[in-house]
């Protein structure tokens, strides 16, 4: 479903991604872990072209998407994204946040878009919050609306960029539950997270990145319980502490 081949990215002189490759099969969940500054967020942004890779290829469903002939807007409709700080549109209420992509990008009529948006809010358990503005919602609720917004476009895959890192502890569970349900329903997901419980239970594969390279990849058991590389052992030791 998603193939990343030997992707490089420079920001000025900073070599952020140094030849990263990965593969996610349809319906799988890949969890990416690694210290801050290791290039995890940049890697996710290269997949939906919020960041343009300098070298290498990103292939989604058999289409090489970092090709000048492919419109990045089209790619981003295929691959949804959920951000660390939610990034809900502050001037729109929850329903409108979910609807706007359907209306403006998919060009659906109002009634159809509203029906679909209400369904997506229902899926994340927020049908009763349709009229609330982001500032009136808790962090956990905002993040669930953000997930509904990404799902509304019916993407082939969803990218999660540390979706629970900005949340107060009491709201983490509700977001992880939504994500777990999504994985069980067969959504293809790439998740940057440090939630080890989630990674253990939900991930099909875990990938450990450091300094812009993939250090180690394997099943959750392999990476967390029997890491082969020294750097992985050190990092896993710290976070499982």
């Amino acid at each position: 479903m998603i193939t990343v081949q030997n992707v490089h990215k420079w920001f000025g002189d900073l070599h952020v991604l140094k030849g990263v490759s990965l593969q996610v099969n349809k319906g799988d969940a890949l969890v990416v872990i690694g210290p801050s500054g290791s290039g995890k967020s940049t890697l996710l942004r290269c997949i939906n072209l919020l960041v343009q890779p300098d070298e290498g290829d990103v292939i989604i469903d058999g289409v090489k998407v970092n090709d000048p002939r492919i419109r990045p807007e089209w790619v981003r409709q295929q691959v949804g994204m959920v951000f660390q700080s939610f990034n809900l549109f502050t001037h729109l209420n929850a329903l409108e946040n979910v609807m706007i992509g359907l209306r403006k990008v998919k060009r659906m009529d109002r009634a159809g878009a509203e029906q679909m948006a209400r369904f997506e809010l229902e899926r994340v358990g927020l049908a009763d919050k349709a009229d609330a503005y982001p500032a009136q919602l808790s962090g956990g609720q905002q993040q669930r609306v953000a997930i509904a917004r990404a799902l509304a476009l019916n993407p082939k895959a969803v990218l999660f960029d540390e979706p629970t890192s900005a949340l107060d502890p009491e709201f983490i569970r509700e977001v992880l539950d939504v994500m777990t349900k999504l994985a069980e329903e067969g959504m293809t997901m790439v998740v940057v997270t440090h939630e080890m419980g989630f990674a253990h239970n939900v991930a099909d594969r875990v990938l450990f990145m450091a300094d812009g390279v993939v250090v180690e990849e394997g099943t959750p058991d392999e990476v967390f319980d029997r890491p082969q590389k020294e750097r992985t052992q050190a990092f896993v030791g710290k976070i499982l502490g």
Partner: protein
Amino acid sequence: MGLKAAAKEIWTRLEDRPVLRSAIAIGGLLGLGLALVLGLAAVGIVSLRFLADNATFLAVPALTSLSATLLSFAIGFAGAIPMGLVRAFAPRILRGEGWRRAAFAPLYGAVTSYVEAIRGTPAFVQIFLVAQVSGLIFPGNPNIPFWGGTLALTINTLGYQTEVFRAGFQSVGQSQVEAAKSIGMRPVQVFLHITLPQGLRLITLPLVNEWVGLFKASALLAYVAVPELLWAASYLGNNRSHPIEAFIMVSSVYLAIIVPLSKAVGWWERKHRIPGLGVAERTVGVGRRRAVVAAGTPAGGLD
């Protein structure tokens, strides 16, 4: 009850009633003005008779002032959106490479020079300059003072409104733009559906300030022979020898237009406010109201 406690009690009761508050403020203003006029009349400085006889003298000049201001503000508004966009986002494009950089460098330079030129010279000078030039191009045309003056006001407000829009666009977070892109919006859609509506809410107050400033600046058109408010007041003052009455009248007309307008916009802004965006529900408050704000503000705050 002490005086301080009584004042606090009255304030608390008025908190939830912005319309009543405005009415009291306007009523107070009217009362003060009336007291001033009657006082001056009592000592023989002001003729009430003259005021009564010329009560409607300023109606047509007021329309002239209003037309020039509304027209130039509207044109300036339309022009300031693209120019503010250039001011806000061209610097980022200029840090990149390729044809975009080559295209935007002169554009950014031109818009910035324009803004600096307008902000760095007196409006009076701009008005004179435009009046002289348009007088040379269309000699003897009786409509030229008005249209030249309106053009000068347009040139002036365009510079200031450009900076208002620049600030508005820049204060829309980059994370909002990234989220809009992530659902597949094209750059034009991101601007129309995210940056513009959020930016407009953030700049309502500075835009009203600019309108009020422009309306008052339109008085300068009196000096290039536009028959507007100040021109008419000067006529009354000089030719009919009642300058104090004339300037009391003209001040009243400015106040009668500006104060209700500001109050109306403030009322509209509060009525249509979106939690967490733009104007705060109440910035100062005691008692009940503070509790309301707190209840509407969940963990994570209003960011």
